């Protein structure tokens, strides 16, 4: 296998030097990395049964071929266990998919992270967190899988902050932004099944995304009550005029309240679609929509998303606490679609 690795090699004295060398080369996200030695990289490739030369994705906009070898090197650096490699590979396939449209979310001043939602048996096998402290910290799989993808974006695709990654503000999810759906406790159809996969398949869904926004509803014991609060919080958020994707992540208490009223994900999406629309008058008065106020603008409504199907509903988060989050997608669903890829082992 070693003969097949073609990456340039660099010699350093010891581990401490190796870590410092990686910083000096500009290969890290600002945190120390695991030195990518041949043994570690080969083990990573073997765990996913990949040949080093195999192309995982081709980003047409950047004219970059992402090989398994480069994904493995970056996964080692991120601190991934070898068994995480198939998930990293599926996520890289997702961001290289033309529907995700790499150039926009990889470059844009609007500062997208790559939200990765892991579904299926692999989430439990790898202990990808779907519960307490969902967005971190504390779980190696969640923090290193997303970190590996971001290092691939940096080191292979050239999305270096300040040069080709021009995020004005960025957000902490750009370091790693991985969650699993809590399929064990959820009464609902898992995200990957809604998106055309079988329950026993494992998948990663990638969505170009802003940071999570937490909302509170500690009063209501009905689905409509909880979702009324969500919609009121969400109505003016993200790129209000762009009609992006949204992910809604419902944690334990809200999940049980909403499901207890018999609502499924489809009904949640439809309700949210209908109750997050803004009047043209409000959008104009708040300087989001151009043009002078016209008669009738107060009853003319613009949906926050183009279709209820652009809302991804996920059951995840701690059992206790009447909080959930919504996550605005980057820009517009027209410019970057959420993509689901199977994790192949």
């Amino acid at each position, binding site marked *: 296998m070693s003969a097949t690795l073609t990456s*340039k090699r660099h010699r350093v004295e010891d*581990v401490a030097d190796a870590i410092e060398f990686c910083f000096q080369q500009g290969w890290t996200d600002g945190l120390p990395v695991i030195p990518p030695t041949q043994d570690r990289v080969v083990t990573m490739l073997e765990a996913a049964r990949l040949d080093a030369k195999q192309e995982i994705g081709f980003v047409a906009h950047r004219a970059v071929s992402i090989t398994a070898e480069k994904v493995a090197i970056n996964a080692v650096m991120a601190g991934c266990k070898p068994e995480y490699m198939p998930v990293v590979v599926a996520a890289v396939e997702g961001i290289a998919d033309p529907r995700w449209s790499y150039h926009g979310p990889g470059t844009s001043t609007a500062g997208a992270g790559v939200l990765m939602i892991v579904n299926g048996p692999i989430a439990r096998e790898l202990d990808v967190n779907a519960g307490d402290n969902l967005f971190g910290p504390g779980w190696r799989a969640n923090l290193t899988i997303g970190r590996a993808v971001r290092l691939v974006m940096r080191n292979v695709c050239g999305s270096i902050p300040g040069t080709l990654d021009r995020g004005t503000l960025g957000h902490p999810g750009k370091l790693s932004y991985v969650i699993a759906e809590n399929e064990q406790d959820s009464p609902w159809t898992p995200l990957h099944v809604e998106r055309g996969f079988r329950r026993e398949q494992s998948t990663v869904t990638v969505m170009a995304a802003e940071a999570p926004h937490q909302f509170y509803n500690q009063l209501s014991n009905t689905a409509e009550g909880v979702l009324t609060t969500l919609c009121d919080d969400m109505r003016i958020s993200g790129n209000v005029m762009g009609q992006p994707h949204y992910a809604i992540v419902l944690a334990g208490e809200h999940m049980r309240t909403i499901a207890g009223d018999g609502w499924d994900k489809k009904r949640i999406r439809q309700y949210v679609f209908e109750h997050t629309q803004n009047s043209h008058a409000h959008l104009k008065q708040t300087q989001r929509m151009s043009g002078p106020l016209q008669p009738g603008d107060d009853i003319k409504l613009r949906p926050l998303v183009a279709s209820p199907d652009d809302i991804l509903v996920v059951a995840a988060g701690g059992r206790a606490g009447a909080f959930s989050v919504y996550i605005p997608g980057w820009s517009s669903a027209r410019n970057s679609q959420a993509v689901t890829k199977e994790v192949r082992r």
Partner: protein
Amino acid sequence: MIELLDPTVEVKAQPIGYVDRPRSLEGKRVGLIENTKFNSDTLLLRIGEILKTEYGAAETRLFHKHNASVPAHEEIIQEIRKTCDVMVAGIGD
């Protein structure tokens, strides 16, 4: 001694053929490609007007990309190739 594998890729050189710049815009047909961002059409149309009135361009035609994040699509590239002598691509934001 530890040997590290490089996580980056070496960029392969890609030759790009440029056509010669015209010496003058007199009588030239100008294609304008806007990226769909707010006001980019306004900006490009204004530039087109200047190219006609101050530089003698014969006409301008405005083309729209599918969205700001993707390269111009083949259909408009072919159309520009047939109907324009020079083009201006610009972004608005």
